[in-house]
């Protein structure tokens, strides 16, 4: 049935918000995986019933969950609903096995990266921040993880292999964690070139492969960060999020720690488009579904004050690909608002009147049915929202 599905990951479980194509009445299911952090959920572009979820816990580690029926039921890939079961019918338990590839054939030695105190620290797997399903194959999905690395599954999440050339890049020992850890949080698949993938790491920067992950290139030329004295530093930048429009994949938009940036050559060169924003610090950035030059950010006061300037929750829209911004406030709280909007917590739908969605650390999920002109909350009392993704069901 045509409609919209909004996948919401929170600190205490996952929620699914569903409406018909009118987007006026919403139903809410959840919490799924109650009590666990759900960093991200995302559906397959070629099979919307296939949804992957990253369920994680500082106590019990990482679990990957999968739904094959649009989020009505879930299982760990390889569990009794899946193909990998042992003779007792129990899951083989490999779906949460993220082990850095140190094999001679395909891997790289497990080196060290820079720790907060400047010493070197070995790579240690903690969690999956982001799941990016393939544009072609519902069984292929990428996982961006902490400590920063990229993994891929080609069996629906039942087993995972590292694309080790990224972690093994010569700059690896210079990578260092941001305040949230050393995480690979952004994975962008180029719809025009299946061998091209962009990733972003805090705090290393952006990287690109043009050969399906066999080699990687830092793409941080033009980024300037106050805390890095060298204006030409290849790595060390705290990139927060990268977004593209599928019809113009060489144009990238980036929300960096500070600065909103743009590249028109696949990330080879970046220039700043913060323009007249009240603050160019923030986390998410999104592109309108039908207008490649219309972009959205949510300014946050500063890196030490993670809430909107002046207590006013304002989305900013540029219809010119940056520099000229307008505040979108209709329906959003304009006083006493001190929530944050995290990097994966903003998404758009493909409705003719593009819908914009974002979740807050205060548990609200706001929705605009008209590209940002008007806003209202779909839900307002969820646990802190970590991620928001949409599926436009046809």
């Amino acid at each position, binding site marked *: 049935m045509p409609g919209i599905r909004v996948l919401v990951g929170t600190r205490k479980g996952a929620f699914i918000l569903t409406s018909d194509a009118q987007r006026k009445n919403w139903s809410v299911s959840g919490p799924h995986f109650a009590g666990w952090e759900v960093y991200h959920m995302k559906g397959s572009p070629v099979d919307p019933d296939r949804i992957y979820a990253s369920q994680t816990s500082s106590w019990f580690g990482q679990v990957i969950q999968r739904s094959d029926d649009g989020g009505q039921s879930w299982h760990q890939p390889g569990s009794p609903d899946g193909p990998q079961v*042992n003779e007792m019918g129990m899951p083989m*338990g490999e779906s949460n096995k993220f082990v850095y590839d140190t094999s001679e054939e395909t891997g790289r030695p497990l080196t060290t990266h820079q720790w907060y105190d400047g010493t070197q620290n070995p790579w240690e797997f903690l969690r999956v921040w982001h799941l990016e399903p393939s544009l072609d194959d519902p069984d292929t999905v990428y996982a961006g993880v902490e400590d920063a690395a990229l993994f891929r599954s080609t069996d629906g999440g039942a087993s995972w292999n590292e694309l080790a050339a990224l972690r093994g890049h010569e700059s690896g020992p210079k990578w260092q964690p941001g305040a949230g850890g050393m995480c690979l949080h952004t994975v962008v698949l180029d719809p025009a070139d299946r061998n091209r993938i962009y990733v972003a790491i805090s705090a290393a920067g952006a990287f690109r492969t043009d050969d399906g992950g066999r080699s990687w290139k830092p793409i941080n030329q033009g980024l300037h960060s106050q805390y890095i004295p060298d204006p030409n530093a290849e790595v060390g930048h705290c990139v927060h999020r990268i977004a593209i429009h599928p019809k113009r994949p060489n144009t990238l938009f980036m929300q960096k720690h500070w600065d909103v940036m743009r590249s028109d050559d696949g990330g080879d060169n970046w220039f700043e488009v913060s323009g007249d924003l009240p603050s160019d610090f923030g986390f998410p950035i999104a592109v309108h579904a039908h207008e490649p030059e219309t972009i959205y950010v949510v300014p946050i006061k500063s890196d030490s004050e993670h809430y909107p300037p002046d207590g006013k929750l304002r989305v900013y829209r540029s219809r010119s690909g940056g520099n000229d911004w307008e505040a979108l406030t209709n329906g959003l709280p304009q006083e006493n608002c001190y929530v944050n909007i995290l990097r994966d917590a903003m998404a758009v739908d493909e409705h003719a009147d593009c819908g914009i969605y974002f979740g807050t650390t205060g548990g609200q999920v706001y929705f605009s049915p008209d590209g940002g002109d008007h806003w209202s909350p779909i839900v307002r009392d969820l646990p802190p929202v970590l991620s928001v993704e949409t599926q436009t069901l046809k």
Partner: protein
Amino acid sequence: MSDPASIRVVLPQHLCTLARVNSEVVLEVAGTVTQRAILDALEERYPMLRGTIREHETLKRRPRVRFFANAEDVSHDDPDAPLPEAIVLGQQPFMIIGAIAGG
């Protein structure tokens, strides 16, 4: 050779949900009953718990998981040390606990 011991194991709520069991399970453990023998048997019977109590590959206890035997915290004990008779005889459960934290 003696019969395998029937060991009672208490799991924290989140792991019960993953394994789809109630809070206490009973495992058959052959040979000397140790932490390692119990965890090996637990992961063999419930493979979805691999990686949630001990790390994959290294099999190191996850930092926020604790083990109790006969009301004693044995988390830092040698994983190959024999456990108390009360555990071996099933009089007391081997307890796997998520460390208390948070507000």
